[in-house]
């Protein structure tokens, strides 16, 4: 039998023309509102077992012994596996550096590291059996910060490194280090009228996607395995999974199951290999679903960071130089740390003109939880700090903070600190102007004829104030984010597009491996096909590994890269169809040979609008199908010493204005409004674009005032792995989110579009911080801000 919940194609009806630029509705929308949409955690198979992972209870320890006897003897248990049971010599995985053990080998390096796996016939049986595995640990000294990582007698988190960064890092506990030197910061500092220094701390944020990690592995009769999985990049998973299983890649057949959000947290493998191992071992389908507690340990987080900045400026408000040092804590395994370092370094100055810079960014190995990709990817931490600095310098100079930013705003042609020219529109000043020009929310909006509506006040329904001690503040920020994978990465996507006549109507089928994680890629892909092929009915095939790689649903890249691949494949299909038409019908009308021909409304038309033929008459029984890889322009690595290089594909920009009210007596913050202006190049689906901007904005709000994974500095254990203790913004914490979308085409990109998803996550946080500083007069050098930071009781 087939697995229940295996995705079928999504066919969208033909009520609208539905091409790009329209706010067409999600093809999976009906399934999602009726509860029919099958997420990975909803998968079910006859005879299915449940997998459970036993994780380390300590952060850094030698494993003295593991006794699985009692677990194996538990009725209902089918398998228990440890490192010694792995089938091949390939026992590690990783996105870039394969340093992560599938199951711990002799040593655990962070709290919650997988040690053993169990399969049983009920999830509770699996949990109880896992709890019966006896692991004896001998604890080791901890590496928890830069000082302990680089001390002369520091314990090495990874001994005998041989990865491609190990040769140039100053210490083996540093994953990667990227300096950027441009101009002469020392000389430029001599010209500065004011110099402002600051130290900042950015807390560890969790992606907190609502759909926990999950998947179903079904053993195949050919010795292979079918894996239904929630991920961000099927082919990256496949490359890491297959060698551990000892299977060729074509025997690990992966299908994207419904994904309940991602935000970077599904770039790394979680339970994929474990489920496959148990399925192959038991010969039965195995499903693994993390609960929320496990999810906090089951994926990497946003790097916490310590940032030191020095900005100089002349009296007339021009930046002279920027010096900065960004130390990211990568935790126990490398994950995406090297690329996060590259981003943090290259985007560390922000969207400003500054010729003289001295920059250093690095990521540590430590025994803290592993950190990697999260929306904004290294640019978020930097933006929080450089925007705080920009406000401080403006204050030193007696300038309005928006005016100071305008004076220094980059524009098209500005050179990045890496020497790369920004060769498409960079409307930084315009975005700030727009966000400042939006009407301000009314004062004392909580007042009504029936008294104060506490729901609109800091403290909310806790009823802590009716307006007493409440002070309003306003803050601004702007940020710059790269789009696509950088530093010379071969960042391609693949699209298979098929056009045929079915039941007398032309139908397009689009097949890619793009992971739809909620962003609406499936909506946009159908729109692109309609625009290019003039066919209303488009079916989006489920994403799987039967088609070439689409690359990751990350880095704001999928509409650009997989969208570009679909556009390209559609163009090739169109050419083939027109050739067929010329061959079959060319003699009927001279325009077949002379005019520019388009496909519109299911017909072949001239650019003058004359209809030459119905597509179904051109196609007859012929199926036109093209599968083709597509690449954006190449990038190059940053020089390891100077950081120079054309490392990024595209830049995107967003600006925010935050209005907050602070109960200064209790230290409670209510964000009243968080307005955003963003340049998106071309909004292929305006409704989805605004949804991305608002969603990114609120994730930035979260890290500003509530979200932080708290790691005990003494034990390196996670203190708050639950939604009770890790606070996400609720709808009551979230303000009105007005959005102003600017569309300045990037001529290098398909349709002129600009990646959208991440930029709004950058400037949101510093705008809220600036507004709180404005309300309270406090310096506030860390995020998130908690009440004790506002009441002086920290």
């Amino acid at each position, binding site marked *: 039998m087939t697995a229940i*919940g295996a995705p*079928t*194609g999504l*066919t969208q*009806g033909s009520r609208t023309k539905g091409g790009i630029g329209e*706010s067409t*509705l*999600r*093809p*999976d*929308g*009906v*399934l*999602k*509102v*009726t*509860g*029919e949409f*099958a*997420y990975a*955690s*909803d998968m*079910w198979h006859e005879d299915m077992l449940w997998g459970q992972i036993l994780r380390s209870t300590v952060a850094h320890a030698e494993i003295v012994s593991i006794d699985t006897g009692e677990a194996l003897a538990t009725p209902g248990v089918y398998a228990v596996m440890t490192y010694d049971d792995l089938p091949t010599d390939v026992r590690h995985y990783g996105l870039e550096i394969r340093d992560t053990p599938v199951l711990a080998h002799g040593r655990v390096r962070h709290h919650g590291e997988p040690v053993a796996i169990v399969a049983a016939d*009920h999830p*509770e049986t699996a949990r109880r059996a896992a709890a019966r595995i006896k692991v004896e640990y001998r604890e080791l000294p901890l590496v928890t910060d830069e000082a302990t990582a680089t001390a002369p007698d520091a314990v090495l988190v990874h001994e005998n490194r041989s990865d491609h960064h190990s040769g140039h890092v100053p210490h083996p506990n540093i994953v990667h280090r990227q300096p950027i030197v441009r101009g002469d910061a020392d000389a430029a500092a001599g010209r500065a009228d004011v110099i402002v220094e600051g130290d900042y701390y950015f807390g560890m944020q969790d*992606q*907190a*996607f*609502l*759909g*926990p990690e999950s998947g179903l592995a079904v053993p195949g009769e050919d010795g292979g395995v079918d894996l239904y999985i929630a991920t961000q990049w099927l082919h990256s998973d496949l490359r890491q999974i297959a060698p551990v299983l000892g299977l060729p890649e074509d025997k690990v057949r992966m299908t994207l199951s*419904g*994904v*309940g*959000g991602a935000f970077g947290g599904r770039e790394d493998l979680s339970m994929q290999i474990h489920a496959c191992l148990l399925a192959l071992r038991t010969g039965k389908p195995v499903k693994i679903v993390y*609960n*929320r507690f496990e999810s906090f340990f089951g994926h990497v987080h946003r790097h916490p960071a310590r940032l030191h900045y020095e900005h100089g400026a002349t009296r007339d408000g021009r930046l002279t130089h920027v010096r900065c040092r960004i130390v990211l804590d990568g935790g126990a395994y490398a994950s995406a740390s090297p690329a996060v370092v590259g981003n943090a370094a290259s985007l560390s100055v922000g969207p400003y003109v500054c010729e003289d810079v001295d920059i250093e960014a690095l990521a540590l190995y430590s025994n803290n939880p592993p950190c990697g990709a999260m929306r904004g990817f290294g640019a978020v931490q930097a933006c929080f700090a450089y925007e705080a600095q920009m406000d401080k310098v403006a204050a030193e100079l007696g300038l309005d903070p928006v005016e100071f930013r305008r004076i220094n705003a980059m524009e098209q042609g500005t050179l990045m600190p890496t020497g790369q020219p920004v060769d498409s529109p960079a409307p930084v000043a315009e975005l700030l102007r727009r966000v400042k020009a939006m009407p301000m929310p009314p004062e004392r909006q909580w007042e009504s004829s029936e008294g104060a509506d506490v*729901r609109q006040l800091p403290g909310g329904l806790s009823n802590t104030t009716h307006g007493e001690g409440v002070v309003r503040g306003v803050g601004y920020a702007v940020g710059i984010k790269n789009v696509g994978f950088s530093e010379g990465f071969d960042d391609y996507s693949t699209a298979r597009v098929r056009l045929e006549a079915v039941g007398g109507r032309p139908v397009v089928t689009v097949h890619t491996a793009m992971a739809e994680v*909620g*962003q*609406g890629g499936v909506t946009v892909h159908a729109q692109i096909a309609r625009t290019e092929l003039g066919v209303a009915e488009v079916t989006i095939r489920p994403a799987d590994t039967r088609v070439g790689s689409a690359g990751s649903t990350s880095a704001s890249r999928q509409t650009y890269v997989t969208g570009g691949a679909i556009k390209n494949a559609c163009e090739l299909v169109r050419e083939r169809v027109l050739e067929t038409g010329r061959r079959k019908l060319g003699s009927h009308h001279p325009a077949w040979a002379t005019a520019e021909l388009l496909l519109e409304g299911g017909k072949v038309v001239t650019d003058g609008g004359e209809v030459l033929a119905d597509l179904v008459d051109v196609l007859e029984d012929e199926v036109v199908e093209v599968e083709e890889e597509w690449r954006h322009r190449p990038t190059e690595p940053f020089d390891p010493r100077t950081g120079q290089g054309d490392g990024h594909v595209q830049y995107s920009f967003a600006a925010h204005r935050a209005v907050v009210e602070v109960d200064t007596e209790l230290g409670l913050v209510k964000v009243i409004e968080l307005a955003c202006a963003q340049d998106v190049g071309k909004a292929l689906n305006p409704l*989805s674009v*605004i*949804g991305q901007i*608002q*969603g990114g*904005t*609120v*994730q930035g709000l979260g890290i500003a005032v509530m979200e932080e994974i708290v790691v005990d500095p003494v034990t390196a254990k996670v203190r708050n792995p*639950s*939604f*009770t203790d890790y606070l*996400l*913004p*609720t*709808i*009551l914490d*979230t303000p*009105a*989110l007005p959005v102003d979308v600017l569309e300045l085409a990037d001529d290098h990109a398909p349709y002129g579009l600009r990646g959208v998803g991440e930029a709004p996550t950058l400037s949101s946080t510093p705008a809220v911080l600036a507004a709180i500083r404005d309300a309270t007069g406090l310096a506030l050098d860390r995020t998130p801000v908690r009440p004790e930071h506002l009441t002086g009781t920290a």
Partner: protein
Amino acid sequence: MRVNLTVNGRPQQADDVWEGESLLYVLRERMGLPGSKNACEQGECGSCTVRLDGVPVCSCLVAAGQAEGREVVTVEGLAEFARRRAGDTASGVRGGADASLDAARRWQAGGTDSQTGENIELAPVQQAFIDAGAVQCGFCTPGLLVAADEMLEHNPDPTDEDIREALSGNLCRCTGYEKIMDAVRLAAARRSEGATT
């Protein structure tokens, strides 16, 4: 143990239920109704919200045995539930939420046969979520729909603050909530338009 309950209008029976199993587990794993989602298992996120004798609850916090003999509405039954409620309102049944609730309890959910979702009748709040762009990953959506539908049942003309208060037990990580606000406003507006025309 054996648990008997009515789910979306149909009597259901689950055997061999462990004492520790939640209503959510029984719905998802024993009754083939995975629409209600498990995102936190501790009542913080609201993704598993169902109606238990009309009252919205986090089904992850309800022991299966507590649902014995009671009536449950999940997202899978929401459209039919709303249709019955609207039908009875139109035919002049008065008495507000409780009366229409009783009427809504009498229906039987129809089967759905389309994986693509074409031609499925939706509750007004479901349609509004699609139209307003309130669905991204959709994992929070079932719980939000049940909660929003229940709010609109007793407060058909909510203020923004009413909506925020009513939905404050439902976390969403994708949308930033603004489109969810739009969707609930839209559902309320369509309802009042429908009532006046």
